């Protein structure tokens, strides 16, 4: 498996540091098939496949993506297999995962209660 989004960092003694014995599987991002290494975090597969916007900030609607890479910042939160707010930098790829960006919440409706009935 080779991909433009992948790289090799050789150790000084010539062994590959990162790309060893990977099994690639298919999962779904917004319904579109994406290839990822089994067990690597979802965000890594998406990044390698060129998908950078992993969600939108709820307040501004602006794109956000992986930031800290190890589960502290929650910027890469996505809906994975129906579960909200999953950190895609931690969540391991498995065959057939359903990965989606979280919808932006709508503005809070301002209804005057005195006129509701």
């Amino acid at each position: 498996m080779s991909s433009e989004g992948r790289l090799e960092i050789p150790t000084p003694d010539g062994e590959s540091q990162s790309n060893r014995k990977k099994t690639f599987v298919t999962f779904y991002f917004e319904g579109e098939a994406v290839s990822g290494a089994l067990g690597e975090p979802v965000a890594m597969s998406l990044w390698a496949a060129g998908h950078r916007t992993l969600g939108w900030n709820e307040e501004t609607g602006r794109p956000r993506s992986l930031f800290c890479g190890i589960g502290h910042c929650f910027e890469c939160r996505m809906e994975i297999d129906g579960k909200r707010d999953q950190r895609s930098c931690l969540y391991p790829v498995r065959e057939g995962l359903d990965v989606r960006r979280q919808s932006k919440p709508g503005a809070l409706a301002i209804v005057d209660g005195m006129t509701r009935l």
Partner: protein
Amino acid sequence: MRTEALIIGAGPAGLSAAIELGQRGIETLVVDEYPVPGGRLLGQMYQSQSGWWIGRRVAEDLLERLGRFPNVHLMLETSVSGLAHAGGGWTATFSQRAGTVDAQAVLIATGATEVPIPLPNWTLPGVMTVGAAQTMANVHGVRPGERGIIIGFGALAFAVADELTRAGVDLAGIVLPPLQGPSQWLGTVQDQWRRLRDVVHLGPRWARAATPLVASDFWLERVMAGAPQKGIPALGTVLRPNVAAIAMAGEEAVSGVWLQRVDRRGTLVGEPWHEAVDFACLSGGLRPVPDLAAATGAAMKSSRSGLHDVPIFGPVGETTAPGIFAAGNVLGIEGAPVAMAQGQLASIGVLRHLSGNPTEWAAEQAAFSRALEVARERAPLVFDRAWSQIHEEIRQAWTNRPKEG
């Protein structure tokens, strides 16, 4: 589920502690959020005085040793969401699954987090911490982008620059962070330059030769401010000590960075210019993640910046909360070999807590304490010079802590 010891964090500290507990027959559960054990060891690769440090191999070795003990269990993809004192021990709950774990002793080895460098448009996809880039490239073999820039002179900046350039990723160099407005907490330009002293020995031979020259602030300032704008070749890229990143550019993702020259006093001079990059790595430094320790009620040493918040701890990783121990970067940022020795020491604390015998394992404690001192002396990187002073204050606070009864 019940266990004698619960270790939170499967990095160098947690795994080292688990091995010690494992070989002494203690039922031990190690949990970690990450799908792969090893913590930050997984991405580490740098040259030290004693040769190359390849963290992944260290992790593999620790895991191989751990695998010999059927009494040690590893549970990954597991975030601790609650830790409550119950029945003389602690009950942990988790984010990923219902159910609880009751433990008689808990070792908190939750490591560190990176501190931010805020600059205009830094929320754009493609701006990430330098640790994220390291994880991406070294751990998962994913290319962060075609051309990047490293902002900030934190210790990880140089290791990651080296790794990325060896993998053929083009870098626009290592530049200063902005030092005004929301980034003012990073200190002065002199503070940034002084950080270079702690890593100069990792650079090429000529840079190491320059060590005596930059030892005085007088010469450090002049050398750094007078560097050519295109930078000083280092680690396959260029160090640009008098150029600051002042803003990121892009619409849906990073497309460039705005740079500007900085003078000897840190003032921005001349006109800013734009360079095309599709990713940026922020290297602000590291701070401990002591949240769980604080939540147990353990006495903390709090810092105004939050950069140095740590539990007050004793010689074998004890905190002031009963049955709560800590090891590794959660006690201060000192690197993996120090964390491993702290993990071993904390295992002594856990063993004594479980047996109720506060004096057993004295020979092992002495050996691990020596190992800790050796690891400190040989540390290839000094992450933050404040830690030795803070640790001295903590030693005093521990000695003078109010004792129960």
